[in-house]
């Protein structure tokens, strides 16, 4: 059984200084989440030995790096697996040869056939990387990494550049890594959907510093607009509970902090199961009285706790509270003015669409 990964490193990276002092769990998936340029990928490079810290200690069972005692185990001697953004398959080897390259050098024998079938690669074995699709490339790269028998696996935005459908088809394979092969993962991403779907623990990174670390439930309320990257839509996240399903109209009723939200879709999960709800700030309209005769199914009564206006843009962000949860809407500044919205005012938030990410 592998030990926890202890990190205490300092590294100057251009404009920011990476300063991380954190012990990461040796089970499940730990997501490092933060905006572009916050140093996420650099942490993986430092841990794996492709980059050298200015000072500090990295330890998992054995010491990998210690600036005081001049220890610096080279990358190829660290018991790690690394899944790169673009897969990085060897172009002169076919899929099977790529897999065998890893297996031959692994510290313990790995079941090749079992891994080939786990990642559904049977039909691709004789193909060369140049003809594989993005999704296939990721699957081969994942399988190759598993075959190298790593004690810990680093995944650097492994789903970047894939469309939503492809992403969703690869995610179960990543979940498999942890469940079937019992490899702890450090997973770097700035995609909130991947966080909700995969994370057991989350490390929030901002400008090279750990802003917070904890289980997904603990960190979730902080994953608000402030930490989000520009290419992730502004959204509010809630952890809710399925209370019933309306099979006739394919809707799920979810309780979030006392408010019931109707979510389109059918869940295979039972009532009482936890579910993550995401509401985009752009999908919320605001009314001062509860509207009637309207197609929108979800309406939450809430109290405004903050309005931030950017005079450079036509939009304003309205933050409101219901129960003890906060939700953010983005409406036009003109709308704020015509409804005379102010802090403390009670409003009705009409939610046009809701998406959910289930966590297994």
């Amino acid at each position, binding site marked *: 059984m592998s030990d926890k990964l202890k990190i205490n490193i300092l590294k100057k990276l251009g404009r920011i200084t990476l300063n991380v002092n954190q012990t990461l769990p040796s089970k499940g998936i730990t997501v490092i989440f933060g905006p572009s340029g916050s140093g996420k990928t650099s942490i993986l490079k430092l841990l794996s030995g492709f980059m050298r810290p200015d000072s500090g200690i990295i330890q998992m069972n054995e010491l990998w790096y210690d600036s005081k005692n001049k220890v610096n185990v080279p*990358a190829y001697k660290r018991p790690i697996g690394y899944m790169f953004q673009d897969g990085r398959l*060897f172009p002169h080897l076919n899929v099977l040869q790529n897999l065998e390259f890893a297996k031959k050098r692994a510290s313990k024998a790995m079941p090749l056939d079992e891994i080939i079938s786990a990642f559904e690669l049977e039909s691709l074995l004789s193909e060369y990387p140049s003809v594989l699709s993005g999704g296939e490339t990721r699957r081969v790269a994942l399988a190759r990494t598993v075959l190298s028998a790593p004690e810990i696996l680093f995944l650097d935005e492994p789903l970047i550049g894939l469309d939503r459908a492809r992403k969703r088809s690869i995610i179960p394979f990543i979940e498999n890594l942890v469940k079937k092969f019992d490899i702890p993962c450090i997973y770097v991403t700035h995609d909130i959907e991947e966080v909700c779907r995969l994370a057991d623990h989350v490390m929030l990174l901002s400008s090279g510093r750990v802003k917070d670390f904890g289980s997904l439930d603990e960190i979730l309320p902080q994953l608000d607009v402030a930490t989000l990257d520009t290419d992730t839509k502004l959204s509010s996240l809630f952890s809710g509970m399925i209370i019933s399903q309306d099979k006739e109209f394919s809707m799920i009723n979810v309780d979030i902090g006392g408010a019931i939200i109707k979510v389109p879709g059918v869940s295979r999960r039972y009532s009482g199961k936890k579910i993550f709800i995401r509401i985009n700030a752009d999908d919320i309209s605001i009314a001062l009285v509860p509207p009637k005769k309207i197609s929108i199914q979800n309406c939450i009564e809430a109290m405004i706790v903050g309005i931030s206006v950017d005079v450079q843009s036509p939009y304003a962000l309205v933050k409101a509270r219901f129960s003890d949860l906060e939700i953010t809407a983005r409406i036009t500044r003109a709308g704020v003015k015509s409804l005379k919205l102010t802090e403390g005012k009670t409003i009705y938030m009409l939610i046009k669409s809701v998406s959910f990410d289930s966590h297994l």
Partner: protein
Amino acid sequence: MPDLSPILLSLKLALLTSFVLLVIGLPIAYALSIWKSKAKIFVESLVSLPIILPPTVIGFYLLILFNPTSPIGSFWINITGESLSFSFFGIVLASVIYSLPFMVQPLQSAFENVGFEIREAAASLRASPLDVFIKIVAPLSKRGFLTASILTFAHTLGEFGIILMVGGNIPGRTKVMSIAIYEHVETLDYNQAHILSGMLLVFSFCVLFLIYTFNRRHPLNVG
């Protein structure tokens, strides 16, 4: 019938030089391809010097180094009993220095094209640096090896100035094709000069034609 001895000597010199340079140039090219330090520029400039330096300049310095009274020249005489200057080994040594950039530059750019990304991926699968080179970098640099070897061979075949200075014109030892041509022209034996020059012209064109054809047919280091 032309005198075959300069042709054979040229081929022997070019083959030996290419082989020696493959052994010496490969580690230099690989080190330069992965080196990040500032000293890299210094070494790169040094390796490329023979491209722009007049052959007479290199020849002059080598002549001084090879002189039996110099440390290198006297060392050579002590172990072989022969002088380095005006010997076949002398012109091999001179060719190795003169053709060094023609081996190192194509290899270095081929290695650089493989990229650190692929090398990192191999290292993350526990391949040692030597393992990475043999199994990943070298096979992906096939084209670079071919280009470098052919260019070195052809360039050595066409050498003139350095050989004349370091080796002189000794039949069977240092009188290679280019020197023989020079001598034929000096003695107004244009027939013989035509034959040897024509051979070098056709050969050089074929070499370049082959390299360009090969590069076009295999635009990527794939498969």
